[in-house]
């Protein structure tokens, strides 16, 4: 199957559909998502059966032109993207804001994202990420709220600045290696004797990718972009569930490419741990539903980075599996948060209660997603967290417990919306919202129970999940939840200091300063200790 169909397909359908009547476009969109999902499944099967698929676009000689390549990781990400998109589009089937322009832009992002996962050319990826940045900022500002305009502008400009770093990094790569193709870059990095000449390209590219992935000093743009009040909920879900993973995916690729010369795992391990811990500390202070979820995304990204950089095989694949798991439950949480906010007319967590009684289906989906994210046994989060944990021993294992405790604490706060007396208001229910939510919640359970065959098939890695581990886990899990609930109820519920932390905001020059400082720190660290 030609891989370029994954890129051209969504863009073509978006262009044609734009000129159709709105209701036709919706059906075309739904059909196209089903077709794309089928193509992605067959691609995944192909790659597992016959090995990596490599295709040259435009008939150029290898290395000169752009190559599209689907390997284990790439094809898994393609499947993940199409699956999440299907859920999002079903969810928004009856929403008012999805006019033709919105659906056009939303579908173009899909094509662009897929091309990032398939492309082998680093300049091509630069172009695609620029396109993605522009479209996302337009979608964040879709309803033109005052706050959303500011958040969208901040998102756009800081990402453009980071992509300038990326472009200069591409220049350095071309100067030192003479190629822009991932495969050829990997080969030539291994041949370079003076590894210090690779410090600049490495630091520039990793700074840009770090900002895209929102690791800690660079993540202050993320919560407001993902959690801005008036952004459509499927945009928030796509951003937090899917598009932030583009940064992490690029991190994995670049880490592999430079691994022969520069491997700064310890640095990113520390950065990941800091991201995870600061992320949940700030999340606890928030009161807005969407902001809590957005800061929790930061924390989870930290956990993924910890897994990827632990140096252990199981923990690495645990991190990759957590990318997929986090995508499912965080997208679901954002979607349900949107539905809840619409029903109650507020996003303030203190003014929402009795969700179970008022919206039973959305409430159930929220509970299942929460159980997934805090790592309940038999849910998907537990498997990836367990795999990440096996990469550590002794004192370092405590780190994972601390991060998981933090996540549990966040959602102890979040789950206060579930209970309480029923206050009636009859609103017509939207079957598409309910169906999509329940399907994603079911996926959380399936990815937990069938984790071993799924990981085994998707990544060709045999992870050993010991039989007795569930017993241990139940005890540890029960303790974590009990302590977190107690800490929240007795210490944090009415604490005044939370307000001061909540109101810390960085303005643009400060964020740019953090970006520059991170670049300087990374290049000095790599120059002194690694290269």
């Amino acid at each position: 199957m030609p891989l370029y169909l994954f890129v051209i397909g969504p863009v073509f359908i978006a262009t044609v559909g734009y000129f159709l009547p709105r209701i036709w476009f919706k059906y075309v969109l739904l059909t196209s998502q089903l077709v794309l999902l089928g193509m992605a499944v067959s691609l995944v099967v192909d790659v597992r059966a016959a090995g990596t698929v490599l295709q040259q676009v435009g008939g150029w000689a290898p290395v000169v032109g752009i190559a599209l390549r689907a390997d284990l990781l790439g094809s898994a990400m393609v499947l993940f993207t199409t699956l999440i998109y299907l859920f999002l589009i079903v969810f928004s089937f009856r929403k008012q804001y999805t006019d033709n322009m919105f659906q056009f832009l939303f579908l173009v992002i899909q094509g662009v994202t897929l091309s990032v996962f398939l492309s082998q050319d680093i300049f091509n990826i630069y172009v695609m990420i620029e396109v993605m940045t522009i479209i996302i900022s337009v979608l964040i500002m879709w309803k033109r709220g005052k706050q959303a305009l500011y958040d969208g502008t901040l998102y756009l400009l800081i990402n453009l600045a980071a992509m300038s770093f990326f472009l200069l990094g591409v220049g350095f790569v071309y100067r030192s290696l003479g190629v822009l193709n991932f495969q050829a870059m990997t080969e030539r990095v291994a041949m370079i004797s003076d590894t210090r000449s690779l410090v600049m390209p490495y630091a520039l590219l990793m700074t840009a990718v770090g900002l895209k992935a929102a690791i800690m000093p660079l993540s202050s743009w993320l919560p407001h972009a993902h959690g801005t009040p008036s952004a459509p909920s499927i945009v928030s879900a796509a951003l937090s569930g899917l598009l932030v993973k583009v940064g992490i995916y690029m991190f994995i690729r670049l880490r592999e490419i430079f691994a022969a010369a520069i491997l700064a795992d310890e640095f990113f391990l520390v950065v990941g741990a800091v991201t995870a811990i600061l992320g949940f500390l700030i999340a606890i202070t928030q009161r807005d539903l969407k902001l809590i979820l957005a800061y929790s995304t930061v924390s989870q990204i930290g956990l993924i980075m910890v897994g990827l950089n632990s140096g252990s095989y199981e923990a690495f694949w645990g991190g990759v599996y957590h990318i997929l798991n986090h995508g499912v439950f965080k997208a679901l949480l954002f979607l349900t948060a949107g539905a809840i906010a619409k029903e109650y007319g507020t996003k303030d967590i203190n003014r929402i209660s009795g969700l179970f009684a008022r919206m039973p289906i959305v409430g159930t989906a929220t509970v299942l997603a929460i159980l997934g994210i805090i790592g309940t046994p038999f849910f998907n989060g537990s498997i990836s967290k367990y795999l990440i944990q096996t990469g550590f021993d002794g004192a370092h294992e405590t780190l994972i417990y601390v991060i998981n405790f933090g996540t549990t604490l966040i959602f102890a706060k979040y789950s206060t919306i579930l209970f309480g007396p029923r206050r009636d208001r009859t609103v017509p229910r939207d079957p598409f919202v309910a169906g999509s939510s329940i399907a994603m919640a079911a996926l959380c359970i399936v990815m937990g129970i069938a984790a071993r065959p799924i990981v085994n098939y998707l990544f060709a890695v045999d992870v050993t999940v010991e039989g007795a581990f569930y017993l241990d886990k139940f005890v540890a899990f029960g303790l974590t939840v009990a302590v977190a609930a107690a800490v929240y109820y007795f210490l944090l519920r009415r604490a005044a200091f939370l307000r001061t932390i909540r109101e810390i905001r960085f303005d643009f020059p400060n964020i740019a300063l953090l970006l520059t400082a991170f670049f300087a720190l990374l290049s000095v660290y790599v120059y002194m200790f690694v290269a």
Partner: protein
Amino acid sequence: MFDVPFGPELINGQTVSLLIFFIGVFGLVTQRNIVKTIISINVMDVGAILFLITVNVRAGDVPPVGESDFLRMADPLPQALMITAIVIGISVSAVSLTIFISLFRKHGTSDWSKIIKRIESR
């Protein structure tokens, strides 16, 4: 390691482009005006583009156009790529400025810190 030659040979495409790039970074960090932020990003882009164009260029190279001497031709690949990057730069500035206009109309200021104060004081 530190015996950098200070002389006319230091003024080449690469040092100049790096200088331009970091002037852009300086503007990004110090300027509070949104228009100046957009200009700074443009300056950074220009620096990066100049860097890529001057990669692998020797004195006396001819532009890779038409039927010029194959051996004395400059490397055509970065030049082809940078046309794309220039086009992206233009569209990006256009989008940023458009968004800035609507931001300015809503908030009535072009200063980053004032916008934050106005959002918080609501």
